[in-house]
């Protein structure tokens, strides 16, 4: 029974990791950019939900309706200006630029909102849970986040495989030059991919604020987990990211069962094992066109 509970709790937290990671995976898969400010963007979204949307008289629980589209727009603009400029120089520059962005964001948040922990206040439902058995507590919020993650991945999957724009995103990811030769403006496509990445990470940031407390520096550790989820699942595979997130969540719960101090360690160990045995990740593709 206790093991079943570990599986359940791990899966719930894994849903959050996947939601957090899918934008990172998309940015890396399409733009070949590792966005080191990805986690900080999530935190910014949390602060916007807590401090700014109340001014619009929108309850915090519905703040994502405003914040997510705004972050999509920000993603497009940041890509077409800052990130594209650094891609045009060389890949290493993108690491420096996004790292710099991360430092600037964290310090601005500390300066403006202090280091105090914040939560997205959604009322009593935030503390309630479904209690199906003697030792099972399934938090409604975690369940909602897992459901949201699955829904977001499903929509993203449909978008990438069924729509013209989605196909172009995959074409640019496969071969940028060949996509240009099919008439695609790759910079615009990069912008759209970044917009999706920023929108999903904003959703993840608000979800995080509903689940637990966040502070200006919460982005870093979540970026690490997201990165691990992407690598475990396999770069370029959306459902792999979900499985990777769930595997990471279960490993962490498993570790925590023996000692709370082992929680993060167990996740990192799983990450290293996957890297050693299957570097392309569980669902990553090794095959390429000869």
């Amino acid at each position, binding site marked *: 029974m206790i093991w079943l509970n570990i599986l359940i709790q791990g899966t719930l937290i894994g849903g959050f990791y996947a939601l957090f990671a899918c934008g990172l995976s998309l940015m890396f898969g399409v733009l070949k950019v590792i966005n080191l400010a990805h986690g900080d963007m999530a935190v910014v979204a949390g602060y916007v939900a807590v401090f700014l949307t109340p001014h619009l008289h929108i309850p915090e629980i519905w703040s994502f309706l405003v914040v997510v589209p705004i972050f999509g727009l920000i993603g497009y603009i940041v890509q077409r200006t800052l990130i594209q400029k650094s891609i045009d120089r060389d890949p290493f520059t993108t690491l420096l630029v996004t790292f710099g962005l991360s430092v600037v964001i964290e310090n601005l948040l500390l300066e403006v909102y202090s280091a105090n922990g914040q939560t997205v206040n959604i009322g009593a439902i935030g503390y309630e849970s479904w209690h199906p058995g003697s030792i099972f507590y399934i938090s409604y919020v975690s369940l909602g986040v897992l459901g949201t993650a699955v829904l977001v991945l499903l929509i993203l999957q449909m978008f990438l495989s069924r729509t013209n724009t989605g196909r*172009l995103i995959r074409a640019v990811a*496969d071969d940028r*030059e*060949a996509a*240009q*030769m099919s*008439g*695609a403006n790759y910079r615009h496509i990069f912008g759209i991919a970044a917009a999706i990445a920023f929108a999903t990470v904003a959703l993840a940031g608000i979800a995080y604020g509903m689940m637990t407390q966040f502070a200006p520096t919460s982005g870093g550790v979540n970026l690490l987990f997201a990165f691990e989820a992407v690598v475990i699942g396999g770069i370029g595979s959306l459902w792999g990211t979900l499985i990777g997130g769930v595997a990471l969540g279960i490993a962490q719960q498993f570790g925590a069962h023996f000692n709370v101090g082992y929680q993060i360690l167990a996740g990192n160990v799983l990450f290293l094992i996957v890297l050693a045995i299957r570097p392309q990740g569980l669902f990553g593709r090794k095959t390429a*066109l000869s």
Partner: protein
Amino acid sequence: MSQLLEVNSLYVHHGQLCAIDDVSFTLPEGEILAIVGANGAGKSTLLRTIAGLHRQTSGSIVLGGDDIGKLTPNRRVRRGISLVPEGRRLFASMTLEENLLVGASHANEGPFNVKRIYELFDWMPARRKQSVWQLSGGEQQAVAIGRALVANPRILLLDELSLGLAPIVIERIYALIPEIVASGVSILIVEQDVAQGVAVADRVHCLLEGKTSLVGIPSELTAQQIDRAYFGADLTPTTTGAAAS
């Protein structure tokens, strides 16, 4: 006949190396021009520059009276230039049909659409849901041609169609070229295989180390003239010219 494409004293550099050294030619509407030359002669660089993937150092590229030398590759597609790149460069994660749909995403008006491509290559409809990496080299080449054609180009740039393909497959692909030209597309073809290029072309332009070494109409050129322009040396047919090539 009106000139569809004019390339005027084009120079292209790869760093210090001058890959294209003062090359000029014209391509009239409805014609096939073959650019032949040995490895490293600058043929692919020339095609990629016309497609916009390289920038010229100087000189101009004029399409239908407009200088397109400063446009991005995707803008040139909308002006009617499509490249079938060397090595095919299909979208590896996609199916055959998805590759064609990407090609059609920014198409010009014209006779080609995905349905027309399926008529041109009648084996395609049955396999349209297959991943392109499951196709043979010749089939992949056909998809690459289809992906370029479906954008309805005015000029199709074909880069080393025969590379890595069996002779029978090459023959089948070349057999399509008259049909493509008949639908109103002009063709600029780059070939290492001189015989193949010369057989299909209206005119031949030979490159040697980035410079024009011979221009002419295939029926008026002797094998000796072409050999000389291709290798930059006299390989007299009385001795072992065939063996040396």
